[in-house]
């Protein structure tokens, strides 16, 4: 029974890790699909949001009783701050990179990773940060599980569905999707591309920030987490296909679960396993499992 316990716990861990990956990769994939910019700093935004959430929560917890309810303003606050930051960065930095070559775009967003990473270090120091929310473990499937996992998985699904609905059922979503396929046409139709870009970027950052916030009770915020995660996000986006929400979702779960179970078998090689999958996908089907052949 102990084995089953371990497996189940890993499954939940894998699923929730998959959710983090999904929330991050969805934004990454959208930003790349619409704006053709691979945002290396995406996970750093996530990390930063986590730190901000922890700080707000700690501040509030001085006055009010700690608990999940307090998490709400903390997460919302962090998300708002990050969206504002995202808009600022898009306006000042990213906007200049649209016509540039790929390597320069990559280097710019990578420079952001370095800069923001040290900014986090400057403000919060090198200690890991974590929110401790008192919670009673639930019993499910014969195992004791932190009920927060369910919330996270649910939140992930909710965002996934919401995003899909937005892209496929609303006018704005359709415009965004159209922009993935044909930027010039959308521009020619009189819709202002810069605003779409700003919106998509802010939305992507917002979702990442939201993820950072809601995961702060579970994952300790530590320097370097962002770099670990962003590489996995690349893997997800490649496997799932740029610009495909469904693909990103499936790939996130896949990567999350593979990673979690690899920890049991080959701890050091979890990432290597994922890279092997990435290599296989890139060779066999470079546009991903669910993507369509990208415009070049």
């Amino acid at each position: 029974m102990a084995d089953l316990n371990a497996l189940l716990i890993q499954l939940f861990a894998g699923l929730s890790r998959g959710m983090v990956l999904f929330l991050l990769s969805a934004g990454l994939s959208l930003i790349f699909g619409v704006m053709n910019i691979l945002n290396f700093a995406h996970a750093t935004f996530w990390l930063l949001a986590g730190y901000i959430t922890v700080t707000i929560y700690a501040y509030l917890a001085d006055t009010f009783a700690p608990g999940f309810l307090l998490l709400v303003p903390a997460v919302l606050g962090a998300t708002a701050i990050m969206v504002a930051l995202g808009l600022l960065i898009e306006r000042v930095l990213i906007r200049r990179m649209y016509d540039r070559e790929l390597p320069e775009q990559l280097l710019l967003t990578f420079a952001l990773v370095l800069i923001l990473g040290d900014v986090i270090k400057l403000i919060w120091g090198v200690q890991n940060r974590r929110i401790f929310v008192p919670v009673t473990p639930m019993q499910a499937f014969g195992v004791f599980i932190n009920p927060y996992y369910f919330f996270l998985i649910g939140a992930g699904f909710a965002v996934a569905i919401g995003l899909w609905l937005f892209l496929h059922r609303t006018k704005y979503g359709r415009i965004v999707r159209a922009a993935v396929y044909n930027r010039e046409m959308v521009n020619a139709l009189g819709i202002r591309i810069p605003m779409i870009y700003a919106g998509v970027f802010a939305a992507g950052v917002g979702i990442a920030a939201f993820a950072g916030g809601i995961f702060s009770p579970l994952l300790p915020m530590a320097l370097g987490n962002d770099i670990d995660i962003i590489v996995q996000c690349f893997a997800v986006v490649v496997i799932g296909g740029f610009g495909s929400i469904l693909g990103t979702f499936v790939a996130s779960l896949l990567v999350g679960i593979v990673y979690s179970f690899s920890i049991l078998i080959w701890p050091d090689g979890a990432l290597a396993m994922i890279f092997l999958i990435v290599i296989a996908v890139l060779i066999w089907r470079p546009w991903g499992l669910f993507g369509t052949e990208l415009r070049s």
Partner: protein
Amino acid sequence: MGSVRHGTALLTKGTNVSIDSAPVIQKTTPRSVVARTFGKWGLSGAATAIVFVGFVLVPLVPGQFWIYVATEILILGLLAMSFNMLYGYMGQISFGHAAYFGLGAYGAGLLMRFFRPGGGEIGYLDFFLSLLAGPPVAAIGALVISVFVVRLTGIYFAILTLAFGELLYYIVFSWYSFTKGDDGVQGLLPPPFFQDAVNYYYFTLAVVLISALLMWRILESPFGYTLRTLRDNQRRAAFLGINVRLHMSVNFVIAGTFAGISGALWGPFQRSIAPGLLGWQESGVAVFMALIGGSKIFIGPMVGSAIYTFLHAFVTIYTVYWPLTIGLVIMAIVLFAPGGVLGLFQSWFDRMTKKNDATADRSAQTRQDENTL
């Protein structure tokens, strides 16, 4: 327009351009002197000469510290130049290039360890054999991986090379019995003569110089210019009869071999090697150097290595926020000087040489820092 030599005619003894030189009115202003002296060589030639002379003179500066720094600049500069064969000359960015640097280091280092199992100083023959073992290991690694990566370009190429680089890192990291894994290999001591910092420095300089000359030869060959067509318009190159994948593969192996040479030099220099040498962070350093110095000029990455290494050595004395510093530098370069430091010089240089030739206007205007290679 004839008398202006562009950066394309780098260190050329004779150009391939069969236009008659228009007669130049000889002036003696400083500008004209600069133009006449350096006009024949172009900025790149001049920069290469300056850099080389600079390296030769380094040991004149007192203190061992600068010798170490200069050795590091040379080795990593060669790595960055080998990266630039893929990037500046062929137009692809590889985020896993340091893997071949690491393979070269391990090829040499493990053989040194084999000759002297307990670690410690080895004999001269063993030393040279070990060094010679590095590049082939890197070349084989590059050959195997090139089969896969040349099917893709752009972002996919970047991610795939990253993935393979990380895979190689993991193999080295995990294969404890063979590579000692995360512990790395210590006690790599070269023979007595080379233990002296200055001697090893000049040895490194010689190796790097010969490698650079060979690289230059390759890049100015028909193959080298074919690479440039792949960079500028891969599809058209295919329509001209060029087998794109084959050429990419050959270049990938050549670049990997040069990276292996620099790796082989690294082990005895640092007296140890570790799996991190293969990782993406090291690859990133090569990319930064090429970018900072200028990817469009042959010697650019070496200049970038000098700037990066100096900066690193200097900044880390005063602060721990190195990532912030280098991040800001990279951002500044990308936003304001995408041609790198030498790219900035190129623009200045063009303006200088343009004013001295009545007929130079047209072709000087054609020279923008994007078009040097």
